[in-house]
């Protein structure tokens, strides 16, 4: 598929032609003739045949939703997920707080402390899904590819404030061990072939 054919604005070359539409009748005799013609042309029966044909073919296009679901794209931005490191299985989140800072609807709340190894540790992390607009900025800004969007788009809660906590978003450890953790391909993900395109920092200047 090439774009050239769409860029060619010279429509008369593209097989376009003016449809031959008769003028509307103005006098009574013309109108009468039109009525008679339309009455006996049998267009109504064409309509009947078309729907009957569809009924006989029985080519049903329904997705019976709760039992069947349409696949969604890998870049779809639904409820967030927290990823783990592939090798060690620990959380990728380093508690930098960038996501909390960038969130335009102010719905991420994060609390950290310094743990016994003098490393920063996330103690609280929640997203208020009632406020989240699923813009994807948090996933884009995250330096560790820790917070991403997932594919779970069905949510229900009794109140508008509907939170997901860190533990709910975190990939379960067995899923990781089974090698089933999915990387997110949307906002903030590494573009394919990035290695070939990246340039080394020119230290010489």
């Amino acid at each position, binding site marked *: 598929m090439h774009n050239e054919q769409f860029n060619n604005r010279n429509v008369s070359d593209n097989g376009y032609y003016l449809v031959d539409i008769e003028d509307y009748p103005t006098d009574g005799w013309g109108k009468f003739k039109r*009525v008679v013609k339309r009455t006996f042309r049998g267009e*109504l029966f064409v*309509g*009947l045949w*078309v*729907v*009957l044909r*569809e*009924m006989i073919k*029985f*080519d*049903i*296009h*329904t997705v*019976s939703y709760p039992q069947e679901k349409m696949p969604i794209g890998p870049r779809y931005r639904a409820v967030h997920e927290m990823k783990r490191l592939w090798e060690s299985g620990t959380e990728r989140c380093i508690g930098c707080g960038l996501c909390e800072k960038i969130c335009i609807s102010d719905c991420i709340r994060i609390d950290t402390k310094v743990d016994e190894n003098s490393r920063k540790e996330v103690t609280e992390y929640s997203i208020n899904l009632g406020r989240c607009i699923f813009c994807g900025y948090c996933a884009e800004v995250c330096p560790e590819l820790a917070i991403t969007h997932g594919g779970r788009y069905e949510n229900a809660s009794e109140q508008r404030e509907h939170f997901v906590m860190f533990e709910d978003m975190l990939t379960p450890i067995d899923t990781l061990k089974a090698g089933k953790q999915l990387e997110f391909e949307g906002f903030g993900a590494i573009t394919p072939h990035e290695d070939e395109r990246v340039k080394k920092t020119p230290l010489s200047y």
Partner: protein
Amino acid sequence: MDVAYLIETVIKVVVVLLIFSALAGIGTYFERKVLAFMQRRLGPMNVGPYGLLQVAADGVKLFTKEDIIPSNVVPNIFKIAPVITAATAFMAAAAIPFLPQFTLFSYTVHPIVADINIGILYVLGMMGVGLYGPLLGGMASANKFSLLSAARGAAVFISYEVVTGLSILAPIMIVGSLSLVDFNAYQSGGITHWLVWSQPVAFVLFWIAAFAETGRTPFHLIANDHEIIDGFGTEYSGMRWGLFFIGEYANMFFISFVIPLLFLGGYGDGSMLGALGLLGKMAFFFFFFLWTRAAWPDVRPDQLMWLCWKVLMPIAVINIVITGLVMMF
């Protein structure tokens, strides 16, 4: 009037009422399924096997819903209007022979509630009185859309009464009776005796007018959802709305009985086969109501009036004149 006759009539009335109330419900199921299949959908699937219990679910919903009488309506008329629609629809059924007479436990049953000698006139008259349901309901509703629908209802019913009346005048002249049983007897000689061969124009006109009488799709103006919400039914809820619905579907079934009885030989010679034939023809006409709903667009009210007064009525009159001339010579 002896007691046996009274009891028999009461039983017949109850049976007709029950069967056609139930059929009206099942009719909605068929309508949903047929429309769905024609539009490549599945229709109701979740309540019961293949959604068969959807009718029951809807019934429970309608019966248990709150019966709201809005504050600005005229309460008594508002309350009585749905009853008029349903009642007149069922009253019209009294003169329709649904099946040929049969013998049950050595007792001859005539499956017609009252074999009156003006059957057709009575059926059409009763269906005409059905106009008062939408008319009064719409006018009493204190809602502009309902009022519009009431006005349309009056216009459509009155105009198409003319077409129905004139179109069956010619067959009546040929048969020489107004009773549906006589009509059936006239055509009982088999397919070649059907009135549709001698009166094709009247048949088509009557069929077209039947769509207006029942308010079905090409002429679905009285409760046209995409223009005037639900028309006269907008302010109704619960079982009162349900009565309108039952009336509409019962009307469809009855008119589907009347068309074959008038033009297509009815139950023929009265054998088992003839009875099944009548049910088959009825099913076809009922299916056709659903079929057109999937296929055809609605016409505008002015087009409907145009069609009635400038096209159908002149044709009906010409048909009568020609029939008369042919019969005279």
